[in-house]
């Protein structure tokens, strides 16, 4: 069965801390994505990756970076967390080369920055 896992369901961090959110998929998918979800704004794409060590900026990359050293793992990094990064973070993966087909989502990480 298809599976995307995220390292934490809930996370509380202080302003200025460096935060790592991990995502692992077991489907051998080429494409992986990080979104944030805020009430009334839907899902907004932060970064995505279509291959190991490859990354592309999404709509809201400011304040974030990513790392993809292995095919199955895609990490989102908040270099210096701020209160406006309090949100639900969703990771997804897809197997098609053009990344336009069905995406499989993890359960999400609800991050609170105080």
């Amino acid at each position, binding site marked *: 069965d298809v599976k*995307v896992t995220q390292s934490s369901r809930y996370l509380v961090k202080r302003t200025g801390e460096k935060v790592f959110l991990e995502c692992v998929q077991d489907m051998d998918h080429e*494409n992986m*994505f990080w*979104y944030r979800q805020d009430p*009334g*704004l*839907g*899902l*907004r*794409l932060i970064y*995505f990756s*279509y291959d190991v060590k490859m990354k*592309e900026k*999404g709509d809201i990359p400011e304040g974030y970076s990513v790392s993809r050293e292995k095919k199955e793992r895609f990490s989102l990094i908040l270099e210096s967390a701020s209160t406006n990064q309090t949100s*639900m973070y*969703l990771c*997804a993966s897809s197997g098609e080369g*053009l*990344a*336009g*087909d*069905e*995406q*499989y*989502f*993890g*359960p*999400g990480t*609800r991050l609170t920055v105080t």
Partner: protein
Amino acid sequence: SQQGEEDPQALSIQEGENATMNCSYKTSINNLQWYRQNSGRGLVHLILIRSNEREKHSGRLRVTLDTSKKSSSLLITASRAADTASYFCATDAWTGRRALTFGSGTRLQVQP
């Protein structure tokens, strides 16, 4: 900017009734997808319709696509309390970027 915009933002119906949600988008697409999200959880893919298709069915779901109007609708027939969730449309558009663009969703409440 939002490529897909759902309408209505919220919908409340009784069990057994049909629920219709609409999605409008702005640019030409390769495909349009519908996802469901239960409260506080990740999204689950429901159905994908390609730009050369007009209608698609999956169980109690029926999706239509009108590329001339740049719109799609999701119909859930004979709704159940378990259908209570948020529903999102997502478009794979001809923008050169290899990623989906999601709308802000419709919150569906099915009263038992």
